[in-house]
């Protein structure tokens, strides 16, 4: 019995070494996945849900930060997109999952910068669910909460030399019934500061 147990644990240990550390979160919540409805408090403490906030043509969950300079550089573009596509039935929902940013800070930052609700993801539960690790990052869901596009808003964080408006192109493709050619794109940004990190 002892011998069998020993062999079993030895094999298990070897497997652990071969497999190595668990994969990082980035690729886990893939395009085509459906997000369950979620409810989080906004910056005024009012609990709001995805299903209540989403538009008739879907929603964009965008991970933000009050301190990230890259997010700051995108604020104006995010607001412009939110305004333009709210009229087309796609609503924006900001999410702040950073454990290092106080509610007061996030609240004043949201009031100064965004024309859409920002929800507080305490304990980074939603960030974990969507495997979000970077700000800014956008998740574009259709009306059935199926992920259509995930990633960068465009291909130039400075905003001076944009040649690919990834998110906007995804909106326009979906709204016109076309296939979204590029369903994900990465860009450099700030790490989401998770609890305990």
């Amino acid at each position, binding site marked *: 019995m002892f011998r069998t147990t020993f062999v079993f644990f030895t094999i298990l240990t070897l497997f652990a070494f071969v497999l190595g550390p668990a994969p990082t979160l*980035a690729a886990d919540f893939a395009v085509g996945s459906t997000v369950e409805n979620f409810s989080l408090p906004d910056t005024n403490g009012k609990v709001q849900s995805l299903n209540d906030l989403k538009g008739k043509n879907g929603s964009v969950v965008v991970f933000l930060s009050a*301190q990230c300079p*890259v997010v700051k550089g995108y604020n104006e573009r995010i607001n412009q997109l939110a305004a333009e596509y709210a009229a087309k039935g796609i609503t924006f929902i900001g999410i702040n999952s950073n454990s290092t940013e106080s509610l007061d800070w996030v609240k004043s930052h949201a009031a100064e910068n965004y024309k859409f609700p920002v929800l507080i993801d305490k304990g980074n539960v939603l960030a974990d669910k969507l495997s979000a690790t*970077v700000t800014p990052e956008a998740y574009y869901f259709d009306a059935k909460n199926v992920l259509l596009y995930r990633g960068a808003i465009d*291909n130039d964080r400075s905003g001076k030399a944009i040649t690919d408006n990834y998110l906007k192109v995804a909106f326009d493709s979906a709204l016109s019934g076309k296939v979204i050619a590029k369903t994900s*794109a*990465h*860009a*450099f*940004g700030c790490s989401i500061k998770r609890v305990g990190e």
Partner: protein
Amino acid sequence: MKLETVIGGAVLLLSLAVVCAAQVSSAARKLPSIKQIDNNGLRKALTPSRKPLLVNFWATWCDPCREEFPDLVKLDAEYKGKIDFITISLDELSEIGRDVPKFLADMKAGMPAYLLKAQDDDAAIAFVSKEWSGALPLTILYDASGKQIYYRQGKVKIETVRAQIDKILTPGN
């Protein structure tokens, strides 16, 4: 005006000028040079040359990047000659002669320093790792053959990196 006063004033002015010039020159000398690279340059930079290679992606605007930098400088000092260690900044190109070298000089960082201005950030990120979301900082350790041994998105723990380096430097590994 007496001749002595004029000469004295001239000598004083000259001394001041020499001191200022020396200080400016000294400050300029201390600033490390940063090499700009594109996607092709990134490919070359991430290729080890007969030694393990530690790579840190960072930016001056990234708080955790700045916070972990003293530990990275320590690692560089500890493993100098045994591994290669490079840093790759994701700052704007306009910072290549300003905040980036200034920060590295403040940190007394002697690692070869690059600034990546990619034609396509998405492609550059995917080339580095399929797992990488683009969040900074990112630290990767490759063995001498180019195999990825350690990958950390977020601040590193110095003892973890040290253990990984020691492991690949141990004969037989």
